[in-house]
């Protein structure tokens, strides 16, 4: 501000000099009086307020720079620089350009694809119709996708510039906020239901310990042991629920990171060696040669194989061995790597197979309890694999064991 006033004063220096000279003349001839001082001050003020010619010049040159810069800017680069999914389309609602974020979020959108065919939700249809028909220049709607993972967007559509016949859709991801709310509700619903059983049993034992078993050291020791097991179970359950909720919080993976499956699976086997020894199970490896890398998140994939291998050691204990194999699976529709964990235990009855990835679905409540299962392990596995665009195939025959095969796409 001070600089602005200074510039203005400098630009009006001749006017000011004239004013000062006038004041000096008046002073010389008549001595200073209020009649002279006030006009002089007014002159100074007017000079300061006069819009500056120099300023106008600099504004013009700035506009020129901007024009040169914008001419060089391609719309494609601008779209790529936007972090939110952005789709540019023409009057017939055909996609002209989609940025990388849009590809990552929606997949399978190529230039030439018709937008209303891809975004079929009624609210998206009305949004596109109203913007394309020109009744409104821009509009915003909330759009949610349920499958394969739940995502919520605030979508704004508007026309680009004047007479370009191009339009733009920008998706602002609101999933996080939405999910935090849901997570709370789900967590409470799941947790309260599943935590009640161990809690009821602990409460029962406390009552017994204070009453009938007050003076019975043998029973006391036994009851305390049971109570400890129950609290351990509650702790595991809370851990699993939390990690499931955390997974649900971030719907899709950050692209660009690669995971070495050989190294990951090796370290899973090492970390579960004590459990395998305890259960008298030997773990055998059958890895393909060559690099075995897939895009993904190492920690999450580690958890997948850990859960699967842990299940194999626990529930396939009677088979005495577990076979972990990694092979290139290029036969299907998309190239990828198959990691298979095969046990030789009792197997899973056919009617349970489609459902065992559901939360808290247990084939046999008793076995699950004794093996310290929470009923969430496979649910977590499925969640992580969905995020990796991977497939879980379960094969089992009663009496012959079970095989859990994970197909991870390589591209």
């Amino acid at each position, binding site marked *: 501000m001070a600089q602005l006033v200074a510039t203005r004063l400098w630009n009006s220096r001749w006017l000011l000099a004239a004013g000062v000279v006038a004041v000096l003349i008046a002073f010389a001839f008549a001595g200073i009086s209020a009649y002279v001082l006030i006009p002089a001050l007014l002159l100074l003020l007017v000079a300061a307020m006069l819009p500056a010619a120099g300023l106008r010049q600099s504004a013009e040159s700035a506009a020129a720079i901007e024009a040169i810069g914008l001419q060089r800017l391609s719309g494609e680069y601008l779209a790529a620089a936007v972090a939110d999914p952005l789709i540019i389309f023409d009057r017939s609602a055909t996609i002209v350009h989609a940025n990388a974020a849009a590809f990552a979020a929606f997949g399978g959108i190529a230039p030439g694809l018709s937008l209303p*065919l891809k975004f079929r939700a009624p609210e998206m249809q009305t949004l596109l119709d109203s913007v394309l028909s020109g009744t409104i220049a821009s509009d915003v709607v909330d759009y949610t996708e349920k*499958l394969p993972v739940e995502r919520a967007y605030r979508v704004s559509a508007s026309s680009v510039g004047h007479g370009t016949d191009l339009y733009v859709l920008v998706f602002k991801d609101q999933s996080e906020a939405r999910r935090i709310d849901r997570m709370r509700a789900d967590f409470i619903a799941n947790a309260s239901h599943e935590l009640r059983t161990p809690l009821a049993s602990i409460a029962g034992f406390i009552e017994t310990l204070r009453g009938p078993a007050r003076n019975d050291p043998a029973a006391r020791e036994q009851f305390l042991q049971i109570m400890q097991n129950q609290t351990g179970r509650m702790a595991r359950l809370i851990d699993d629920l939390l990690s499931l909720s955390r997974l649900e919080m971030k719907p899709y993976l950050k692209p660009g990171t690669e995971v070495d499956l050989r190294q990951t699976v090796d370290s899973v086997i090492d970390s579960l060696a004590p459990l395998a020894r305890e259960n008298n199970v030997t773990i055998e490896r059958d890895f393909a040669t060559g690099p075995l890398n897939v895009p993904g998140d190492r920690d999450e994939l580690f958890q997948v194989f850990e859960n699967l291998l842990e299940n194999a050691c626990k529930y396939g204990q009677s088979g005495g061995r577990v076979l972990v194999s990694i092979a290139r699976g290029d036969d299907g529709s998309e190239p990828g790597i198959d990691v298979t964990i095969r046990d030789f235990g009792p197997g899973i009855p056919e009617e349970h197979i489609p*459902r065992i990835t559901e939360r808290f679905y247990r084939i046999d409540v008793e076995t699950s309890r004794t093996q310290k299962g929470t009923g969430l392990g496979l649910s977590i596995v499925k969640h992580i694999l969905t995020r990796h665009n991977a497939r879980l195939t379960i094969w089992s025959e009663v009496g012959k064991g079970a095989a859990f095969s994970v197909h991870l796409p390589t591209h």
Partner: protein
Amino acid sequence: MQSVHIMSAFDEELKYLSKRIAAMGGHAERMVEQAVAALVNADPGLAEKVIRDDAVLDEGQREIDDKAIIIIAKRQPMATDLREIVGAIRISADLERVGDLGKNVAKRVVAVTDGRQPTSLFRGLEALANLALTQLKEVLDVYASRSVDKIGFVRDRDDQIDAMYTSLFRELLTYMMEDPRNITPCTHLLFCAKNIERIGDHATNIAETIYYIVTGDQMPAERPKGDKTDKISVSATPPAK
């Protein structure tokens, strides 16, 4: 890939047809989703809305039928164009059925949620609905992208849906045997499960139609494999606890 016609109005008409199909698809997906949500969350208000929304699909189907007949009469289309139009008629009929099935699920909400039901009853149904809806979504995505080479997933998923339905059927029968008071809600849930399984079948039909539109051939026939509920019986003694 669509070729360009000398009369661009014809292109416009074909485009309009596929746009209407997509809009119907979006409506059908939304209806099924909301019907299942209404069931799981015991929300009769949402169920009411689903029942009302069915009219939109009926209207859509009538419009597509009319438009398609007019186009055939006016343009006398051949080859791909004719398949496109006949395909639109068939897909819209399938989508209209999907809407009806969703509506039927919504209608049962009040009866099922009358008493307090354990959540485990609904969990299986929700998983089944997710499978069927994924099927429908992916099939309609193929309709948009026309990449029929990837359509093999449809058969796999159909098998999954059938297996899930069979398992759910068995589970519901078990609940009924445990406690006669479960019979009312479980019977309704059985119908809901059947409806959702049918939605998966309609999605498969649509996939076959799309394959036909794009390639001109019928999708290669595979061994028939349906659900196995026709063979399920649960022994009269309640399962040992």
